[in-house]
């Protein structure tokens, strides 16, 4: 038996503790979300009528099963508020992911072309904001965008506008906040693939007569597609469920689904509807989540 195989057995036992933890605190909780999304709202603490009572035996179990209701899901489909906020979330995620790709790609490309010894520095500079608090970074923008903030000051001094522009509580502020917060998530996977690319490939294409633009579209971009995929998924999935940024920077007239869920939960205390909202959101994200999982696994196998 090879050393590698002997090593593998105790290594497998290492999985037990994290496995149990993740099943208990990641997988099982989804069961509760599903269960409560099927129960009815009650004005009580906790604010739902329990569906299953394991102690009551199978008869009660069957009875409870009959009482399961899909009313919450019916509400989600019939009420415009929910349909609209799902749509808005998808649109916002799509638009901001496209902007992120457009801005992030040139930056990652520039990083990959830096002299080798400068690349770790550039990477560090991109990572540092990722470590800095999300909330603080959004707050920094509120400072700049508010009515008498720096941006309006500059615009007024330059006489570009005659009176302060309303920036906060607009969609542009929200997009700015999202792009700002997620930029490192887009740049890093792009940089990872671009920096591993063999420069000889681009040189060969150029030697064979391709114009720089053609080299980019025919060689560089297709080869960077794994990085594009990772970056797009890493941004798109969390943005769909984003709460903090639209809450602090966008107006309150149209909500994203994360905000709707938050309102149902914390303001209306309607846990069943909040759970149903979460289930639908999860279903919408299953395809991108599976794609992301496949990408992750392939990348680790390549190592």
């Amino acid at each position, binding site marked *: 038996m090879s050393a590698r195989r002997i090593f593998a057995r105790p290594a497998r036992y290492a999985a037990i503790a994290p496995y149990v933890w993740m099943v208990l605190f990641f997988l099982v909780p989804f069961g509760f979300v599903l269960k409560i999304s099927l129960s009815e709202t009650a004005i009580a603490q906790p604010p739902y009528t329990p569906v299953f009572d394991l102690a009551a035996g199978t008869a009660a179990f069957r009875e409870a099963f009959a009482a399961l209701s899909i009313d919450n899901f019916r509400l989600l489909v019939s009420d415009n508020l929910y349909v609209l906020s799902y749509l808005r979330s998808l649109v916002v995620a799509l638009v901001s992911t496209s902007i992120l790709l457009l801005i992030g790609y040139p930056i990652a490309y520039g990083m990959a072309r830096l002299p080798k010894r400068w690349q770790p520095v550039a990477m560090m500079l991109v990572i540092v904001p990722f470590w800095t608090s999300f909330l603080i970074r959004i707050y920094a923008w509120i400072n700049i965008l508010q009515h008498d903030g720096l941006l309006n000051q500059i615009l007024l001094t330059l006489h570009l506008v005659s009176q302060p522009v309303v920036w906060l509580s607009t969609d542009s502020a929200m997009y700015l906040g999202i792009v700002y917060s997620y930029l490192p998530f887009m740049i890093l996977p792009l940089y990872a693939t671009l920096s591993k690319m063999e420069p000889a490939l681009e040189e060969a294409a150029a030697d064979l007569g391709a114009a720089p633009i053609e080299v980019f579209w025919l060689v560089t971009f297709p080869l960077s597609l794994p990085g594009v995929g990772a970056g797009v998924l890493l941004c798109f999935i969390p943005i769909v469920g984003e709460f903090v940024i639209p809450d602090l920077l966008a107006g309150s007239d149209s909500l994203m689904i994360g905000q709707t869920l938050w309102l149902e939960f914390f303001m209306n205390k309607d846990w069943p509807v909040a759970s149903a909202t979460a289930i639908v959101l999860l279903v919408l994200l299953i395809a991108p*989540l599976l794609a992301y999982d496949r990408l992750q696994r392939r990348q*680790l196998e390549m190592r």
Partner: protein
Amino acid sequence: MERHKLSRFNIASLTLGLAFLYLPIVILVIYSFNGSRLVTVWGGWSLRWYHEFFNDKAMIDAAWMSVRVAAASATVATLLGTLAAVALSRGEGFRGRPLFSGMLYAPLVMPEVITGLSLLLLFVALNAERGFWTVVVAHTTLTMCFVAVVVQARLGSLDRSLEEAAMDLGCDPVRAFLMVTLPLIIPSIAAGWMLAFTLSLDDLVIASFTTGPGSATLPIRIYSEVRLGVKPEINAICTMVIGLIAIVIVVASLASKLSNDRGESAAPL
């Protein structure tokens, strides 16, 4: 041979990109030292808002709660995340492995409102009293996945013939791991702990769901203040948090440099 040609376009996009990333933070730090209450007026350099923070009992309590939660959850997460990384990179195939890796990668991108809500419902069903420990469990669940990714990246780049040599020379696998592998991956484990610490310190959404009355974390306090408008005191708090994180990053990058010097490339995070 010139390997990379840096065009003007490359330089422009790099400069603009980095300026975009850093300018707002720099402005925030500068304003935290503004003596004036009005953002429009520069009232000279002053530590006034820092004084204000240190006299704000509720804010201090929240900050202390956050630091305790972050330290506790980062420690448990590092332990569990490292074990998970070892199992994934050295365990070859085992039953339930796809589910295991799926559960570890999903929280990295899962919208926080879903993770927070589902954990809260679990705690309610278990009748757990919400407060310090429920937030620690919630943050551990999220951050152990990040630790697992960081440590796994390092284990993947490690030369496996080292631990195989140790076993050929008579070490059993556990001893080979403890004496050969572990010392080599310690820097990335440290980096994982620090990443977990800062992620926990930063989290608003999951903490909001899983904490109970009377035990607000710092982001929860900051959030409720920010909703009411800009307050110079918040600038000061944010600057201190940025300072703390900057220290953590310097330590982490020194650790990863150490790991670079000893072996091959370090984890990207």
